[in-house]
């Protein structure tokens, strides 16, 4: 009974958390006039679906979505593969320069993305990858997100007792076999976390695509939304419908993975 105030506070907090999403979803079904004349939390009097249709037809929204998906999936896979390899090396293998190299990775976490934009652009141009999907993907996999991914997975690997690996070694397993057969299955939770962090951060990124892509065939959703905003500054009904479509895939992916994330953060050793 005395928990009621607590529940009230928690419910209000939850409302604030999802409020903006709900308001957006609500408005996406209203006509332009209704958005201006009704209260934002009022349900639509005559819900319409045409806003979504209008966004799709006026803009090449399909292309934006496809591009975002290609880039985000590629980056996620790249991160899972390369960061895991590196993380295992840092966590378990002994080699000269290991700790210094690891600290160098960590140090680059403190460098903001904005700072390296133009130099990275110049490098990508030298590689002939301007305005290409590969040019979009590579700096994400190997640059912006990589140190965090390596850090995360390495910390997790460190919490797995080495006795399991030692047993496998005695059985004659080589390093790569251990990694593939022993470590990775045990690391599913953190890999799930890394996957979702990579996917979300890539999907939501505006700066790099803004600089590296210009043609409309490589445009991703973030740029599409930014483009829409300046063209239709007060046409909230369209902008909010587009935003809904941009937000929903992430929410869906999250709901699928959310148990992984929570468990892996718990297990990743806040010790």
């Amino acid at each position: 009974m005395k928990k009621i105030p607590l529940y009230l506070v928690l419910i209000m907090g939850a409302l604030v958390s999802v409020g903006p999403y709900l308001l957006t979803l609500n408005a996406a079904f209203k006509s332009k006039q209704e958005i201006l004349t009704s209260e934002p939390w009022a349900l639509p009097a005559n819900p319409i679906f045409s806003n979504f249709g209008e966004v799709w037809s006026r803009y090449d929204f399909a292309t934006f979505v496809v591009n975002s998906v290609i880039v985000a999936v590629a980056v996620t896979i790249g991160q899972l593969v390369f960061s895991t390899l590196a993380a295992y090396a840092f966590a378990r293998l002994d080699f000269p320069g290991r700790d210094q190299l690891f600290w160098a990775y960590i140090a680059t976490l403190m460098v903001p993305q904005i700072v390296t934009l133009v130099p990275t652009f110049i490098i990508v141009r030298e590689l002939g990858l301007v305005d290409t999907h590969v040019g979009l993907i590579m700096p994400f996999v190997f640059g912006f997100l990589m140190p965090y991914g390596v850090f995360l997975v390495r910390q997790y690997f460190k919490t797995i007792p080495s006795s399991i690996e030692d047993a496998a070694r005695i059985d004659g397993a080589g390093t790569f076999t251990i990694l593939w057969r022993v470590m990775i299955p045990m690391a599913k939770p953190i890999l799930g976390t890394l996957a979702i962090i990579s996917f979300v951060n890539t999907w939501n990124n505006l700066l790099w695509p803004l600089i590296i892509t210009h043609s409309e065939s490589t445009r991703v959703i973030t740029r599409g939304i930014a483009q829409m905003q300046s063209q239709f500054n007060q046409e909230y009904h369209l902008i909010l419908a587009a935003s809904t479509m941009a937000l929903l895939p992430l929410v869906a992916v999250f709901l699928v993975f959310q148990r992984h994330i929570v468990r892996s953060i718990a297990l990743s050793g806040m010790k």
Partner: protein
Amino acid sequence: MPNPPDTEPPPRRQGRRSRAAFEAYAMLAPSILGFAVFLIAPIVIVVVLSFYDWNLLSDPEFIGLENYRELAGDERALKSIGNTFYYVLLNIPAQTVLALLLALALNSKIKARNTFRVLYVLPWMAMPVALGVIWRWVFDPQYGALNRFLDLFGVDGAAWLTDSSWAMPVIASVNVWQYTGYTMLFFLAGLQAIPAQLYEAADVDGASPLYRFFAITLPLLRPAMLFVLITSVIGSFQVFDTIHVMTAGGPAGSTATLNYQIYLESFTQRNAGYASMLAVVLFAIIALITLAQAALFRKRTTYDFS
């Protein structure tokens, strides 16, 4: 029966080590290559550029320490440093305290914990670009949800995003909204790692809830606290998208953090060399603060950072 002789001759041990090293480098190769090309190389270029004057259109011109000297007299840049600290002060304590309280609440015996947890973490997914529009709509002085809501109570809402005293607090609260749930997860994990026996022992001694919190919970949360503070402070020095879509650094430069000022100098004012200098300064600030945090916590925690 005598023990079998020691059969691990030194050469074999060395061989194992160099084989391990070779395997390690093989595993690391793609990552290191990428690291060198896409992280180290750009950073080196930025540092070098800080000694040049470059308007993006012609060739860079070497000017030595001129950029660094100019900083002392640059009001906008100095103001942006102030704005950055203001933002961090508004953002981090609120976010950390709220996240901790939430974690405590969700760690206790209440119903629907999972549901609450999911709802509180959802904001983290939000695409800043899309959210920016939504927030601008929510904070619009005439049609926005916030002022309409306040109207119901007869309170006159301010011109949130066009008023230079309110713009930064608004941006900070948007960020608190977005990351509190995510931060909460780390505290939750830390709380769940505290052995229950400690609390039971305290109960036997008749300890009050406040005592339990300050004597047991807080000290044992230090590792989680360290991780959270370091990563969220680094993150808040780098905030960009939210500012870009909500205020573009305005009104009157009140929401231009140093990170955003770098963007403005580089792309609006075409001072890429000067912007690079600012980037070096920003990195130095972040590094100093991170080291200070680590040092402060390191004395009293057994968290293994290596």
